[in-house]
């Protein structure tokens, strides 16, 4: 086989969705080793440009792929398919850094439960994806290992915090990736990079072994090339676990059953607050065009109102940063991670190790959280926000009494330039203005490709559904995706 021909077949192989790659493996068109090697070649060729991998686990991946090929058992749709994990998902014997200096050399002794479930399903791990430090951010610019780039325009951010994951899926550096979403960290980068990003209901996927940001918000979910793939990955990772007491005993349905191509009988609510000032007109137009497509597919569209939306950002950051400040207290320079070499007494170990090990945004989060939880300010900040959260949950319940899903833009604007918001934390928080309410209410949502800006940057549509109604997302998302061709468009790299 000539070099050029070999290269071309690689390009075709890495372009495949999970379901397509699964067909190829099952029918022996190629092996898992072929597929894995094709991705590793692509990573070698492109990742110096996109900076999406903190660690590439080439040998580990090829060894697993070889085992899968030898066993020849492709009954699991994920068997032999190469993927990546955001670098907050612990992997036994493989460095897991949270993209932070404080964990720069941390090697966990065990796998996160979600990693175990995927490995049991035959997944091949290509490496660990870059993220904002401890997932604090909307651009990956707070990563200790440098920002990841947007494959559609490398001067732009890929979004965040799962920006490494989104860039990888969009640029064919992984078939899919596992991210985390605390305030939009799967959906917003999926929107900015043109892939599918699923934020599951709180508790749907066990969080054991995934480094926390804010424990009452954190969720784990896939970034994929298609809606069908998101359903396949969720099938493998969803469900109750004794290792996470917040996973309820709610049955996991067969998600593939909900992948229908028409929307007859589906009621879609349009919350007007998600189409107001602060959201770019071009973005609004793309989503309105998308809603027209859904109407043609048979959906009934109604107006709904979520008047508390404008309070979602402060409610979110008060609560999330409070929880983060307590979660990050475990990094003390003693148990694991970075420790200072200039301490003479115990308190100095804490103070210096943390100051040397944490970046700016994480320090800011700890400071805001500590303030909001401190005596004298607890009632005015933390408790007030926890009450507004209760009202927001009720508001969503009322909306979902009238419709099956809500449709909105995912991000108020397409990808922004690297550095544009880096020095203005409040402006950066505003990038999450359309995503955080979902986490506050604990409901599920998904971003899917819906079009492009005049500058050629992707624009994502957000579909929301009530708690444990992921099948509604897959139904509406799949029908829209099959009726449009946005998923086919690829960045020119």
């Amino acid at each position, binding site marked *: 086989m000539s070099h050029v021909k070999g290269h071309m077949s690689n390009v075709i192989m890495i372009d495949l969705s999970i379901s397509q790659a699964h067909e190829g493996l099952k029918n022996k068109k190629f092996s898992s080793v072929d597929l894995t090697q094709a991705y590793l070649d692509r990573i070698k060729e492109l990742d110096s440009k996109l900076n999406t991998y903190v660690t590439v686990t080439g040998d580990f991946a090829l060894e697993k792929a070889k085992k899968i090929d030898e066993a020849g058992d492709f009954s699991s749709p994920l068997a032999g398919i190469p993927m990546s994990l955001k670098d907050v998902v612990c992997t036994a014997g493989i460095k897991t850094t949270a993209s932070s200096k404080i964990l720069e050399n941390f090697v966990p002794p065990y796998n996160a439960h979600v990693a175990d479930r995927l490995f049991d399903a035959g997944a091949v791990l290509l490496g660990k994806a870059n993220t904002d430090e401890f997932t604090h951010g909307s651009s990956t610019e707070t990563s200790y290992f440098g920002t990841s780039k947007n494959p559609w325009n490398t001067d732009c951010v890929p979004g965040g915090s799962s920006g490494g994951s989104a860039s990888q899926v969009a640029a064919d550096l992984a078939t899919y990736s596992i991210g985390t979403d605390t305030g939009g960290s799967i959906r917003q980068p999926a929107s900015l990079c043109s892939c599918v990003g699923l934020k599951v209901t709180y508790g749907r996927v066990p969080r054991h072994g995934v480094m926390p940001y804010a424990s009452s918000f954190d969720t784990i979910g896939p970034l994929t090339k298609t809606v069908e793939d998101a359903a396949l990955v969720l099938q493998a990772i969803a469900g109750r676990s004794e290792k996470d007491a917040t996973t309820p005993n709610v049955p996991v349905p067969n998600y593939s059953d909900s992948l229908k191509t028409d929307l007859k009988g589906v009621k879609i609510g349009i919350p007007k607050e998600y189409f107001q000032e602060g959201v770019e007109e071009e973005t609004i137009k793309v989503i309105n065009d998308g809603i027209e497509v859904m109407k043609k597919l048979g959906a009934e569209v109604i107006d709904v109102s979520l008047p508390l939306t404008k309070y979602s950002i402060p409610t979110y950051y008060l609560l999330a940063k409070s929880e983060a400040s307590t979660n990050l207290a475990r990094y003390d320079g003693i148990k694991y991670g970075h420790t200072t070499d200039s301490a003479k007494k115990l*308190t100095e170990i804490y103070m210096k190790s943390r100051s040397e090990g944490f970046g700016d945004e994480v320090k800011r989060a700890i400071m805001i959280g500590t303030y909001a939880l*401190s005596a004298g300010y607890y009632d005015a900040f933390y408790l*007030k926000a926890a009450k507004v959260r209760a009202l927001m949950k009720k508001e969503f319940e009322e909306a979902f009494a009238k419709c099956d899903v809500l449709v909105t833009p995912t991000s108020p604007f397409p990808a922004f330039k690297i550095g544009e918001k880096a020095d203005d934390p409040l402006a950066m928080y505003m990038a999450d203005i359309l995503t955080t309410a979902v986490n506050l209410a604990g409901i599920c949502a998904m971003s899917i490709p819906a079009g492009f800006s005049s500058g050629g940057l992707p624009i994502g549509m957000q579909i929301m559904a009530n708690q444990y109604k992921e099948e509604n997302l897959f139904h509406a998302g799949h029908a829209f995706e099959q009726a449009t061709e946005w998923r086919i468009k690829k960045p020119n790299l």
Partner: protein
Amino acid sequence: MQLSQEDVKHIAKLARLELNEKEVDKFSNQLSDILSHAKILDEVDTSSVEPIAQITGLKDVFFDDERKDCEFTDELLAQSPMEKQDHMLKVKSVF
């Protein structure tokens, strides 16, 4: 609302963070902006609302109270940069 440099230093101490003067200056401005913005929550009437911290309504999740050995004791202890002695970590003196 404006956080003074003293406020910032006090919070930093509570949070076990050592900040330099430049950071104190920067954070006093940024935290003031962020917390002032949060005051818009005062517009929402929450007088008869119970706060929420568990969003899916789960409560009292119990598992069997069984003793289980940790599989990773040595690996976990090996993570510590401190000196070790008989499965204990030796840290600097408190004073």
